[in-house]
């Protein structure tokens, strides 16, 4: 029976299912236990699973991720939470130099089945050091997978897939999505993930232009598509879901149908995922189908301002996608 729930609750359900279904799974991070997580994602899990498996840690991001790496090497399935994705920078050595490389450097003998969950993105008035979208940073590193669910169902399904993946996965949740409601079906089977990491998906069919997006920008792209439909513009929306590995095939196929492409992400444009998506399209024969120059939509190239109105101006909104689409259609 399909139901609706929130993105945060869907994550909570996935965590509970994973903890219940596999003794190798444990969760640790700052304020994840007694407090239930800064955004309530792990609410109630400490009471249910005890403090060995839902572990409140000191403020020690380096140790949270580094110890997660160590535990993962033994075959445990740690899920570590970094309270804001901005703080992952305090754990870049264990993440970039260790987690991403140990399978390779140990000659393939060891796996690092670690999941790093972290809320990212702006729009909450949390200013420059609590609002970044750092996915392109992580995606640049060979050995890491980077997942950014947009929908409630994907929050649940992709988290299970991330935990079941034998490689380190950076799982980036968007703070503004936590309270969004959406269609949801829980699965009792946390052994066999429904979703697959590295699969993008057409979530709205259209014929005039393709928008490729992920995380909250997928939601904004769907809103933009509705508005554009009123103007007679029929937009196809592809939710990339994971940016590393990037599943470019559906984007190429869509562009071969529509001939026009807009890529949207909340991170600033320079050296971002958008550039990678565009390159992935033009490096194929989809190039021959392009009828107009492509456009990237992203944040302005500045840190996130504290003032609400400036923050809104810096973050790409639904209207910015609408404008970009209209420009591409016109050109």
């Amino acid at each position, binding site marked *: 029976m399909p139901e609706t729930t929130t993105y945060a609750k869907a994550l909570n359900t996935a965590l509970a299912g994973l903890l219940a279904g596999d003794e190798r799974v444990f969760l640790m991070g*700052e*304020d994840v236990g*007694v*407090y*239930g997580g*800064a955004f309530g994602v792990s609410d109630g899990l400490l009471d249910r699973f005890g403090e060995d498996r839902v572990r*409140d*840690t*000191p*403020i*020690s*991001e*380096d*140790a949270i991720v580094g110890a997660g790496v160590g535990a993962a090497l033994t075959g445990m399935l740690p899920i570590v939470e970094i309270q804001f994705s*901005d*703080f992952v920078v*305090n754990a870049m050595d264990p993440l970039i130099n260790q987690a991403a490389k140990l399978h390779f450097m140990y000659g393939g003998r060891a796996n690092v089945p670690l999941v790093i969950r972290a809320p990212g993105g702006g729009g909450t*008035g*949390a*200013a*420059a*050091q*609590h609002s970044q979208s750092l996915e392109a940073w992580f995606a640049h590193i060979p050995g890491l997978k980077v997942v950014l669910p947009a929908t409630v169902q994907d929050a649940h399904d992709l988290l299970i897939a991330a935990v079941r993946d034998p490689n380190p996965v950076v799982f980036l949740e968007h703070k503004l999505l936590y309270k969004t409601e959406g269609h949801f079906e829980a699965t009792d089977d946390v052994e066999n993930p429904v979703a697959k990491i590295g699969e993008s998906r057409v979530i709205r069919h259209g014929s005039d232009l393709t928008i490729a997006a992920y995380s909250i920008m997928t939601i904004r792209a769907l809103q933009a598509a509705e508005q554009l439909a009123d103007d007679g513009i029929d937009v196809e929306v592809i939710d990339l879901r994971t940016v590393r590995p990037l599943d470019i095939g559906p984007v190429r196929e869509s562009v071969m149908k529509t001939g026009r492409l807009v890529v949207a992400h909340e991170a600033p444009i320079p050296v971002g995922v958008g550039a990678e998506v565009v390159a992935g399209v033009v490096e194929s024969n989809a190039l021959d189908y392009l009828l107009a120059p492509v456009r990237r939509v992203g944040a*302005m*190239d*500045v840190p996130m*301002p*504290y*003032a*609400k*109105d*400036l923050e809104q*101006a*810096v973050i790409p909104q639904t209207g910015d996608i609408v404008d970009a689409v209209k420009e591409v259609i016109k050109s």
Partner: protein
Amino acid sequence: MLQILTPEGDLVGEPPVDVERTVSLYQQMIEARAYDRKGMALQKQGRLATYAPFEGQEAAQIGAAAPLGDDDWVVATYRDAALMWAQGYPWELLFLGRVGDERGGSPPDHVPVLPPSITVGGHMVHAVGLAWAARLLGEERIALTSFGDGATSEGDFHEAMNFAAVFDTPCVFLCQNNGYAISLPREAQTRSETIAIKADAYGVPGVQVDGNDLFAVVSAVTTARQSALAGAGPTLIEAVTYRLGPHTTADDPKRYRPDDEPDPWRERDPLVRARRYLEAADAWDEESERAATDRATETMDRAIELAEATPDTAPDHVFEGMFAEMPPHLRQQLGEARR
């Protein structure tokens, strides 16, 4: 634990400052509390963004600033407005920063105070660099860095302490142990018996003081500062205090501590004991209390008025803040933002 003034206002040691100076420091604590309560009230009215209160920690902050020279650096956190103000950072700029305006992070010229650190612990190493620069430049100044008990779990704490110690930089590390790292109590953060004892590992002095005792804090910081200036390197001071309020206005302490846990700490209120001491010395009475409180209220009304009268940040500000000269692509984005 060093204590000079008991919660009852009795002396159990030698006061580091005379009565006249104590009156002035007590007035500063009154002003600091007025700022803090105003901050909480304004946030509830939607006039400030997130606010991190320091009620209960006034003695640790005002006491730490008291022995500092005019040029001494203060490198502190989002919970240290009183400390920053006491070293010259104006209330209106502190409010402005919390209104959500980066210009609140620009101290006036000649105020040796860095804007508050928002991430936990990253600023301690800055203090080491400031102090090292002061040594290289032959300047008679120290850097005092303030942080919470939670920050001592960060790698930055270890690296800052170790650097400062091996380079003998003129630093004072002031840990305001207020009992919590957001929801995590002090005893769940470290097995060390005290935070001060961690200094042993770095080969520097570590002192634990009653952080709600103005005199104990002044005394410890005075000694640490003199030692730093004499070339003997850093000192770690643990000021034991208590965060009477929430971590920030985004937090609900009921989820991790009993409602009545703060009660005994109310009895150890740093303002109450300073007042008792001054009243016993015939240097303070009901009348002076009322006058000081009224003055503090007026000061805060004026400060928020000034902050709110500051014209809203134009989009220009965001782009101008990026590089010494604005590159063409930002000039273009500025044009778009103005529309």
